[in-house]
């Protein structure tokens, strides 16, 4: 097997995550999909690291995880406070972008 399959897998997961972001309304699930996309990226980084024979890819994946953690913390906090005020975690309820 060629390790490039990992990249195909990563692309597939990324796409699934992206579609998930678009079709789900629940902010929490939406967030999970984002996490899925990030993880797919990480997988690609790791595979690239193996391909190029250096560790920079892994380092970036590591940073991605840190950022993802931070993002989840803030994002979930936003969801919680949003839920408090609106009693809903649906992103469609917050359609204030339209005048």
């Amino acid at each position: 097997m060629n390790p490039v399959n990992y990249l195909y897998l990563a692309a597939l997961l990324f796409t699934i995550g992206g579609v998930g972001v678009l079709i789900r309304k629940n902010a929490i699930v939406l967030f999970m999909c984002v996490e899925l996309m990030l993880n797919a990226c990480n997988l690609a980084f790791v595979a690239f690291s193996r391909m190029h024979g250096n560790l920079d890819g892994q380092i970036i994946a590591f940073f991605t995880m840190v950022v993802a953690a931070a993002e989840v913390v803030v994002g979930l906090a936003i969801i919680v406070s949003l839920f408090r005020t609106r009693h809903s975690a649906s992103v469609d309820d917050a359609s204030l972008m339209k005048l």
Partner: protein
Amino acid sequence: MENLIALLVAAPLLGAVVLLCGGRRLDKVGHWIGTLLAAVSFGIGVALFADMLGRTAEDRTLTQNLYTWIPVEGFQADMAFQLDQLSMTFVLLISGVGTLIHVYSIGYMEHDERRRRFFGYLNLFVAAMLLLVLADNYLLLYFGWEGVGLASYLLIGFWQHKPSAATAAKKAFLVNRVGDIGLSIAIMLMFTTFGTFAFEPVLASVGETSEGTLTAIGLMLLLAACGKSAQVPLQSWLGDAMEGPTPVSALIHAATMVTAGVYLIVRSAAIFNGAPDAQLVVTVVGAVTLLFGAIVGCAKDDIKKALAGSTMSQIGYMILAAGLGPIGYVFAIMHLVTHGFFKAGLFLGAGSVMHGMNDEVDMRKYGGLRKYMPVTYATFGLGYLAIIGFPGLSGFFSKDMIIEAAFAKGGTEGWILGGVTLLGAGITAFYMTRVMLLTFFGEKRWQPDAGGELPHPHESPKSMTLPMVILALGSVFAGAFFEIGERFLKWLEPVTGYEHGNPPVSAMTVTAATMVVLVIGIAIAWTMYGRKPVPVVAPRGSLLTRAARKDLYQDDFNHVVLVRGGEHLTRSLVYLDHSVVDGVVNGTAASVGGLSGRLRKLQNGYARSYAVSMFGGTVVLIAATLLMRAV
């Protein structure tokens, strides 16, 4: 000596500035300042005249160049004056009659709270009129030309709280402006033809251009003259202009400003001499106006309007004479001067009558005034005799000369023109006798005024009668003075040129014919107005009378065609501007707005929907990148 020329203009101009900017504190002395400065101008004029008499005929033209007014590449207009015999004649007439009318106005306008301003306007007029006749180029003449138009506008509308006065003023200015188009175009033509518009070079080189150009210039100058001198077809404003105070009518609308057209034509003699077609049109205009004014004058019951018709008619004589060419120029000016005397006198007399009759202007409500206003009666009477051409008085000489010259034109033209002038003389005699009879003779037909009070006619104060007396003297003696030894002819000939015409009939025959016509005119008038009592309310009258009362329907024509037509045109243009021109603009805006409204629906406010767009955009970008690399 020539340095004094500018002072001629400057003195009354100073007066105008001081009086108009001086404010209320000058109310007490304003009229004295105005009169004094007009008199100063007259004094300078006399001094220059004396100086001029002391020179030989060739040496009499004085020039003074103050500075270059408009210096542009290829276009040079100087603020320069030229004083020759022709200008001198006008200077004396304007400043002389002007001063007299200033004096008269002191009394006439005594009770008007805006007398200071009146004198300011009068001074402004004198300054502008002097500028007009002293200019050494057509553009500066245009300056003066419009200046007198402004003064005329201000003075006709002096009692502007009366809507009729304000309208008359506006009308006068507008009709004059139509004439000004002619003057503008004439100047432009001169500029393109000669590269200059100063009198001396233009008039000296008329021989080098085609007759067609000269005819065009001449016709344009005639248009200007028609506007200013109230000639057909631009005559309609003069009757209405009588809304102004009577001294104004005397000075501006009888003696001086309205004769500016004659000045313009005589001044441009060289151009007209080179354009016989234009000359013919000039004589025709003069002849038509002569009859037109005379007929209108016969029907008017308003004393000032009757006199206005007479003015129109007399200026018709002058224009006709000017159109005759070198045989007529001198007589045109001579009639202009004598007319200045007697018509100013007549107007001042009319003013005096109105002054005594509570500002009543309808002659049918006068009658028998000779006992109550002896001085007015005498001076008015002398003016009357002068205008109808009573032998020995001014009008006799000057008018007779024109009639002779008209016959001397020769050919059928000569006969027609001569006949018209003769007929005009007869009608003049008729309408002037009518005025005289209605005003001073017959029984009293006085009517109570608005306050229910019958007027108490009385002689006017000295300040008013004195100018009348002086003008009456002028009316009596000026003609004879000019004619003896052909003084006037010799005086003007170097400027205008002269050519003795050969009338088909002898001068004596013409004079005799004139006398006959004169007597017939008087006789008809006496039959109609002297022999039997005159009704206070005007009878319906014949068709001609009714037409003449309405200025031969000229105003109605103007109203229907120009005013109504103009109103419709303006209204439709305003509509067009709003709905079509602006409509296109607003329509564009509205359609863009509509399109935006449609596009706005894509913005549904759902973040996910936007995310799809972003995702789709990413797809497109990636595809584009791959495609680019593949290619």
